[in-house]
């Protein structure tokens, strides 16, 4: 049986908006095994992006515990969490969020500048990641010179360039046309199947969710049902 990469135990998350306390996650527990491709579905406001942010360590739960790759995230301070995130998590945003003043190559190199890798080592990793997403010939292009689908592929390459164990994707096809969305889903599936990456993807789209091996449904902050493909 595969190792459990993600363990979430009884996690709650409340936000305060003006005078109101908003309960976003209410006692969520779930596990994700190494090598899984999980789709997290649910209506808007169900808490799926919040759960993804907690998994990425860019937000903290109100209560409960999250362990990723054996590390309890609550035990890390802000600086340690940044380092942990850099080593273990690749994040794919709905709106790509590439740095517009950097080329595709430089966008990929950016997280690697936080390591002690030499320039040549960085180049090898960036070239490999661009090769995987099929954009080796676009490495000198700026984001504005790429299509939406290409931008998202570069964003995926940036997410995997540090070779993280966990890839988190927040509505990765939400801003793309059907054709580009299909390419991105193919790419994520390839990363999961060929490179063994564990992927947790938030999506509204049932067709996108079907590409995952497991679906989890969130509604009003609670995990309701699960389906396996």
């Amino acid at each position: 049986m595969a190792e459990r990469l993600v363990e979430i135990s009884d996690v709650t998350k409340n936000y305060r908006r003006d005078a109101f306390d908003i309960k976003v996650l209410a006692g969520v527990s779930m596990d994700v095994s190494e090598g899984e491709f999980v789709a997290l579905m649910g209506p808007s406001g169900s808490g799926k992006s919040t759960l993804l942010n907690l998994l990425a360590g860019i937000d903290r739960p109100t209560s409960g515990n999250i362990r990723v790759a054996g590390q309890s995230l609550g035990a890390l301070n802000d600086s340690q969490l940044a380092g942990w995130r850099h080593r273990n998590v690749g994040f794919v945003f709905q709106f790509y969020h590439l740095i517009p003043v950097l080329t595709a190559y430089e966008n990929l190199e950016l997280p690697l500048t936080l390591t002690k890798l030499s320039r040549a080592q960085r180049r090898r990793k960036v070239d490999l990641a661009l090769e995987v997403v099929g954009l080796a010939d676009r490495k000198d292009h700026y984001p504005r010179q790429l299509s939406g689908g290409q931008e998202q592929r570069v964003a995926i390459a940036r997410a995997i360039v540090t070779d993280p164990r966990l890839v988190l994707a927040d509505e990765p096809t939400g801003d793309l046309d059907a054709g580009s969305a299909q390419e991105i889903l193919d790419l994520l599936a390839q990363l999961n199947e060929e490179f063994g990456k564990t992927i947790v993807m938030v999506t509204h789209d049932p067709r996108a969710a079907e590409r995952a091996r497991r679906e989890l449904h969130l509604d009003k902050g609670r995990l309701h049902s699960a389906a396996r493909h």
Partner: protein
Amino acid sequence: MIKLIRRNLLRNKRRTILTVLSIAIALILLAFLDLLLAAMSGVDSANASRLVVRHAISLTFSMPAAYEQRLAALEHVEGITIMNWFQGRYIDDRPENFFPRFGTDPDTFPDVYPELEFSPGAIDAWRAERTAFIAGGALAEEKGWEPGDVITIEGDIYPVDIELTLRGIFTHPTDEAAERVLYFDWQYVEEALGNPGAINSFYILLDSPDNMNETIAQAEAMFENSPDQVRAETEAAFFLSFIEMMGNIQFLFSAIGLAVIASIFFITVNTMAMAARERTTEVAVLRTLGFTRSRVLAIVLLESLSVGVLGAAMGLAFMVLTAGALSSFLASQGMTFSELRLGERTPTLVMGIGVSLGLAAGLVPALQAMNMKIVDGLRRVA
């Protein structure tokens, strides 16, 4: 990281260029005021061993000529001479025809100005002839005067016109502005006025700059109970107080400089805050990628610092290239101070302000970027 900072600076070229330019222009103005103040205080030609004694109330008040002998008797005095500002009008009132004209004593003047070099026979000729004058090399060259030339200066402060014959030229080893002066025998005016025996100032050369404070105290104490009390000060301080007859120049310049820096500070803060606000999501992305808070702080601060340093460097480069020309222009307008010369002080001041401005302007946006919650940053645009 450096690449990211450089690219961010070039992201909105027009805004960066305008900000850098406005900092440069503000610092040029500040450097100019500073140089002008230094030039006015005569730091170049002022002799550290020379002090000036004048009336305690104001330079426009005179002291009895008899003070000279009493001051000469002070312990550390090597030489003493009188110095009266004649002013007057040479040819007409155009600024280029204005230059300082002092009435002094040819017998004692050279003792107090040992740094000046006189043309051969100049001193003897000057002493021998009541209507003789000596002129600085730069002034004589500017006016095209040759020894033997006769000039007329129409009195305005004093009701007497004087006709003077050039009998010698003097030069200063380092300060050309010190050569834009004319000296004549005050006895000429004194006699024309009926020997009132009134002196504007006494210039005293001491045996050592170390005895300056002691002699200043002695000179002021000497006339403490006299109707005409005196103020003694270093030559550099005197030059400034001479200019300050027009008002508190130093305060005025400092106030202008401060106002300029304050306004440019707020402009730069606003620009940097705007630039940082536009990149809120990018900062959140950097933090998601693993950039620590301190690294984000450094990126924003370094960007702002670069703008400040670039502005300062540009301002300084302009001053280096134009100080000479500005000096000549001011001289042509009758402002005969020392030359505008960039020493160590002004560049240090300009670069210091550039660095401080850059850091201070970037501090608030940098702290905001550092303390921003990642999820808030991602939510803002997305």
